[in-house]
């Protein structure tokens, strides 16, 4: 079974590459097209002839074109062709098989420098001091805000505070402060939202100062939220490792000037666990792992340790299947999801996003915005302004919807209507 067009387009590094790939798939001349269980390949003729090949295992691609986008338009075009109808099954030409061999050759292990334990201990002690000094500044700043009142809030003071936290090596807190600043003056209810967030920030600072009295898992969460990052090797060593068939149920991508980031939610068929994979890519480079919405990957995930572990990374990938099925694994009503959410918050009160896969729910629009009604009639408000594609898919009838729940509203990421999986992210 082949990938869907939606899935291929989800790989595009930007809308221009997606559009160019679509154009190539239906409007260009291709030759030497072929596929095997390991790869797709073909030669695309434009002003020159480019040889493009894609590894079916992880969807990594290589093309002889000079583009610095990954995957390039030729690779996207090739995948779109393969999505339309199977390519001829032939023996791979040399330029494909050599590439595959090179990819599968065992990689020499990166030589890790032997750390100097003494220097390391000194560094971390120094960092702890800096972070604590940053927390002192934060507490003072928060107290000033509380004394003067939110009515007098000065937006620019958030950026200044965030910069100081960066200096104090507390990048997690810094971005939290920046995000709160962005709320100021926004939605009509912003004072209430800002108060909630400032309160959570104060709780975070308060908790970190009594870190030693907390359970180890929550200590991990707090350190991560402050900005102590864990190396991959540490995650693999310290966290749960779960081998399962993971359904890729929703994905959200963001872009700023230099970085693209991506949040992908997975659901394990056996473990029933939810995993959140965060990925980053510079410029138009590809994300390290191709995670296609609607697909299923058989893989071993490593979870970041915590009181309610959900962030994870792909430790080892075994196989990809284009579709995880025609129903969403998840909750049959909002109530069971909400009670699960309450349990998660009781373990880790700062969770600001939870995955909510809700089956047989009906989206509709009202004067107060978009809403999603479960099979029992309970209604969750949707965040965001444009959910017309979801409404069009449903036609006022039940569909399966996966979204992100922020404690107040649900942001829909994907839907299954009539057995077909649809990403709801804005069209590329």
């Amino acid at each position, binding site marked *: 079974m082949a990938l*869907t*067009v939606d899935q291929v387009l989800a790989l595009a590094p930007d809308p221009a590459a997606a*559009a160019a790939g*679509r*154009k190539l798939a*239906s*409007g*260009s001349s291709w030759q030497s097209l072929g596929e095997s269980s390991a790869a797709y390949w073909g030669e695309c003729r*434009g*002003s020159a002839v480019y040889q493009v090949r894609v590894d079916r295992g992880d969807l990594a691609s290589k093309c002889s074109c000079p583009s610095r986008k990954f995957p390039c338009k030729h690779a996207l075009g090739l995948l*779109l062709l393969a999505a*339309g109808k199977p390519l001829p099954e032939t023996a791979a030409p040399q330029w494909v098989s050599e590439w595959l061999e090179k990819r599968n050759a065992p990689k020499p292990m990166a030589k890790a420098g032997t750390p100097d334990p003494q220097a390391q201990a000194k560094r971390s002690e120094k960092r702890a001091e800096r972070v604590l000094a940053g927390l002192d500044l934060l507490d003072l700043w*928060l*107290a000033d805000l*509380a*004394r*003067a*009142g*939110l*009515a007098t809030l000065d937006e620019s003071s958030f950026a200044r505070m965030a910069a100081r936290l960066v200096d104090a090596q507390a990048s997690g807190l810094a971005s939290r402060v920046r995000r709160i600043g962005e709320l100021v003056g926004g939605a009509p209810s912003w*004072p*209430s939202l800002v*108060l*909630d*967030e*400032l*309160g*959570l*920030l*104060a*709780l975070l600072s*308060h908790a970190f100062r009594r870190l030693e009295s907390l359970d180890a898992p929550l200590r991990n969460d707090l350190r991560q939220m402050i900005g102590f990052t864990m190396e991959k090797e540490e995650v693999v060593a310290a966290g749960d490792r779960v081998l399962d068939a993971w359904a890729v149920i929703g994905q959200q991508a963001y872009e700023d000037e230099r970085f693209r980031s991506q949040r992908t939610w997975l659901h394990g068929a056996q473990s029933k666990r939810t995993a959140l994979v965060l990925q980053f890519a510079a410029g138009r480079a590809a994300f390290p792992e191709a995670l296609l919405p609607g697909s299923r990957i058989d893989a071993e995930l490593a979870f970041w340790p915590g009181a309610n572990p959900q962030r994870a990374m792909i430790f080892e990938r075994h196989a990809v299947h284009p579709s995880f099925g025609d129903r969403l694994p998840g909750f049959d009503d*909002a*109530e069971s999801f*909400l009670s699960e*959410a*309450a349990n998660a*918050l*009781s373990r880790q*009160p700062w969770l600001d996003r939870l995955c909510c896969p809700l089956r047989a729910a*009906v989206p*509709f629009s009202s004067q107060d915005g978009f809403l999603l*009604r*479960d099979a*029992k*009639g*309970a*209604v*969750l408000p949707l965040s965001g302004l444009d959910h*017309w*594609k979801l*409404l*069009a*898919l449903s*036609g*006022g*009838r039940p569909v399966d919807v996966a979204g992100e729940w922020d*404690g*107040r509203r649900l942001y829909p990421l994907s839907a299954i209507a009539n057995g077909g999986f649809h990403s709801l992210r804005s*069209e590329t």
Partner: protein
Amino acid sequence: MTDALLRAALAGTAREPMPSAGAALDALVPREASAEQRLLLLAGARAVARRAGFRPPALPLPEPAPEDALPVCSPKAAELISWFLSAEEHDLLLEAFKALRAARQRLRPELLPAALSLRDEELREALLPVLGARGAWLGKLREDWSWAAGVAPAETTDLLVWEVGSHAERFALLRSLRAQRPDAARQLLESTWKNEKADRRALFLTALQIGLSAADESFLEAALDDRSVDVRALTPRLLARLPGSALTRRMESRAATLLRAAPEASRLEVSLPAELDAAWERDGVLRKPPQGMGARSFWLIQTLSLIRPQFWEQQLGQDPADVAAGADEDLLQGLTGAVLLFEDARWAAALFDALLAAPKSDFQRAGLRELLPLLEPAEAGKRLEQLLKKPHEALPAVEAMAALPAPWSDQLSLQVARALPGGGWDLLALAVMRASPKAFAAMENVLPPFDEQPSNQRLLDRARETLRLRGSLHQELHP
């Protein structure tokens, strides 16, 4: 709002020193905490409690969309259309919607939001039959999609729109009402006619072309005396198309002495009055010619263009080809005007041939372009194929072909494919967009693989791409 904590936070602890979030949460705060700490920790605890304690309200659902009778198009067709939508390929979209309709399929629901947001009238018209019940259902949910809602407006809303709508809305209402109930539409127009501004009167009058009938005559006859020049120019063109109208009889009695076959040669003689009668002027013949044209030529052209061309076959006892062959440029111009007004294929072919033989002029080029769509497709194809073979005739031919509705007939498309080598880039660009799928293979076979010049290479690539895109579309929709 009874949120004491938020009130305290807005005012600041300098003014509200003992914030509270209710006994249960208040008890969680350490006793030694300052007023500021207390406020913030309470806010944090309450935020967690709110998130964990969300209670969803229960609400009834609005009506679902009715079941659709038409099947949805294939995913491949949907992908093509989705791409055309995002690239705003007007012509390809139009072709896709028409092909979808012919295949008795509808758009897949996920394409509907983008399709409903199209603003082009021609595309919207082509979309209506392929939106399905789902599209009409969505149309009811958004003001800017209401054009697709498929509800005939009630009579009372008609009147309201007519009284308070914008002129575009009023014009749209008049046209749609005219298509369903022509008399009611005319009466609606009459009811406010006297109070409309001149430019509105002229615009609204064009709606009467829809469903024109003898019942309109007395209104139109009165409009011949309108204050507005534009109204006076349009009205005779409407009355002339009513076979038994008083204006038609007046024009034909004038025509009876206007033209005569000269006995000595196949040439037509004209006898015009020396002075223009006021009665002629009332019937739409303007007195003052544009610059560079003689007054009598001008009167003749205007008069001829209001007379049904078949009249001359009886009057002169000649067939269209003979009449056209004996006509000079003024006569050709007048007869072309008449053929365009009365839309007669035989006369269009005769005049097309006569214009081709006539000396080159702006009028000749415009005439060829305007007449071509009126010809029978086979007749049009025959003439175009010959024209395209002659380099100096190719440009006017391509211009004329651009006016033909797409897609071209199979026969014409194949004829054009044969003419493509040496036919020029304009012909190629037009042909790949308009030809019928039957000719795609033939066209692709005659395209040169490469061109030295990069700009030409781009045109070639674009032509191939268009052919393949259209090919994929038709393959999907007519398997």
